[in-house]
């Protein structure tokens, strides 16, 4: 009698059915993204093309070659990168919000986006090819976070408050550098190029460098997933977490490294995509509760679904593609306002 009683209490707060629903939603949106576009391709054809190319099924093509190229070389990579960036930014946001125990923390708090923007602007001003721009951008994103980390470090520890303050300082510095580069850039072609790049796009990723984006993000997300329970302990405060036997400095470095890899990669490939890392963790806390054990996988699924939807809107709303950074803010801000009012600004 007593045993069943215990089991009922110990049951996970989110049922398997609910998880399956989340997974189904994310995967259907992913699939829909493949046949939506300026050129609508029937779901059946998309399935056949995927079967032929991914599973090596012996399917006779009854479609034009250009359709296959559109699906395999444009839409599929784009859907993959959109879901990884959405999932990665959301997970990073959730991890940082837990670590800093502050609801207004975004994954860019340590200055990664400001740094990566400067790197990209430099690359564009110097008329480098896209790959080089991406590499410089990635490196500058990492550099900014390293600067933040060592600015915050005192007596072998990096207190959370110091990290936030140092992140603000480093961000402000790199923002100023960015303004300087924009000010000096040629207003005919380079300034617009920088401006457009910063507004973000999923379109610049081709299938060849997909792996370079997906690999660091995938590994980092896996690590965040593995330490998700420790985020609960960490969120009780540093001193308490240490008294519970958690090596907070190690976990802090691990989380910072993972989130930095995710955010620097996403900014380098897709520009600055704001609000996702702020909105999705809040939304997921409403759906599955505050326990990071559920929250982290939920942000993965919902983040991917959300950015796929936004990217589809970018492609479909007008003939000229709307930069994704604009839409995430235009849609994200009202959603966030709604969530804040609904939860009354609290966490409960």
């Amino acid at each position, binding site marked *: 009698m007593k045993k069943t009683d215990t089991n009922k209490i*110990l049951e996970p707060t989110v049922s398997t059915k609910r998880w399956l629903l989340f997974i189904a939603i994310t995967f259907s949106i992913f699939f829909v993204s493949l046949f939506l576009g300026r050129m609508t391709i029937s779901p059946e054809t998309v399935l056949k093309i995927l079967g032929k190319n991914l599973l090596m099924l012996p399917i006779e093509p009854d479609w034009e070659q250009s359709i296959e190229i559109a699906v395999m070389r444009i839409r599929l990579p784009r859907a993959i990168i959109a879901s990884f960036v959405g999932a990665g930014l959301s997970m990073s946001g959730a991890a940082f919000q837990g670590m800093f125990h502050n609801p207004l923390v975004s994954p860019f708090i340590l200055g990664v986006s400001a740094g990566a923007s400067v790197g990209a602007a430099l690359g564009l001003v110097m008329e480098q090819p896209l790959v080089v721009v991406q590499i410089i951008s990635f490196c500058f994103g990492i550099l900014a976070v390293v600067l933040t980390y060592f600015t915050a470090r005192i007596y072998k520890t990096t207190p959370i408050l110091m990290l936030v303050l140092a992140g603000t300082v480093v961000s402000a510095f790199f923002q100023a550098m960015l303004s300087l580069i924009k000010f000096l850039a040629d207003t005919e072609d380079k300034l617009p190029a920088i401006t457009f790049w910063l507004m973000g796009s999923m379109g610049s990723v081709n299938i060849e460098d997909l792996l370079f984006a997906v690999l660091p993000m995938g590994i980092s997300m896996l690590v965040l997933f593995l330490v998700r329970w420790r985020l609960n302990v960490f969120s009780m405060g540093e001193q308490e977490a240490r*008294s519970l036997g958690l090596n907070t400095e190690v976990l802090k470095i691990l989380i910072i490294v993972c989130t930095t890899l995710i955010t620097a990669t996403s900014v380098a490939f897709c520009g600055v995509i704001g609000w996702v890392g702020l909105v999705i963790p809040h939304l997921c806390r409403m759906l599955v509760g505050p326990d990071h054990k559920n929250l982290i996988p939920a942000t993965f699924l919902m983040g991917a679904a959300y950015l796929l939807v936004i990217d589809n809107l970018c492609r479909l709303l007008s003939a000229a593609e709307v930069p994704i950074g604009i839409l995430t803010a235009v849609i994200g801000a009202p959603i966030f306002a709604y969530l804040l009012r609904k939860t009354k600004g609290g966490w409960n």
Partner: protein
Amino acid sequence: MQPIVSVSNLSFAYQNKQVLRNINLDIYEGETVCLLGPNGCGKTTLLNCIHNTLHIQEGKILICGRDVNTYSVTELARLMGYVFQEHTAPFPYTSLEVVRMGRTPHLGFFQSPSKQDTEFAYSIMEELGIAHLATKRYTNISGGERQLVLIARTLCQEPKIILFDEPTSHLDYKNQALVLHILKKLSQRGITIIMTSHFPNHVWNLGDKVAMMGYGGFVAMGNVEEVMTEENLSRTYGIDVHIYEVVKNGKIERFCTPEIGL
């Protein structure tokens, strides 16, 4: 017998403010030690030094005969728990989840608690009589209940030593008694308890040993019967304190009150 906690010649200063001077203290396994003293005399600082949260400048602290500095965070958490006084919960976790966090030192870095860990956490909540709180949000329960949840969490670490920083502050009369009762039960289980308190009366209920602190060092230290005198209490707090004895049901009960001059 070797003391489980041994503090020798400990001195500690925050920047240029000397707080602890030449502290010596030996605590043996199973003892309950109360630290009394006025605000700001360094009771919490001493606990934090023993817990290795603060790094001491002079002297030595041995836990089970080993320098406290040589323990890893995880090793220390298996040996020693700490129930903090100041505490804010950022997220509305369930109480069971909070208790389960006590399993951290027994888990690998990438591990989450297993079903056994959860059952263990629940059994400790049952033992402390707070099983009904298991599914309640930790942020929505009362201060007294929260204190019990934190004690349960510390027990989940299975420590030999537990440090309490003013375990009965902010609690109402009944909850104070409840917490004292639980501390007594822990002591009977053989757990060594080091606690700070602002209630000298609690010392008679609980303590084996008492250390009275003034600014900088101990005023008196030793067994409760010897040290809890009017003179020592008066010196510690800098006011006149009277001790009364009453015989109730054939047992001598002691209590003290300060003299409030007008």
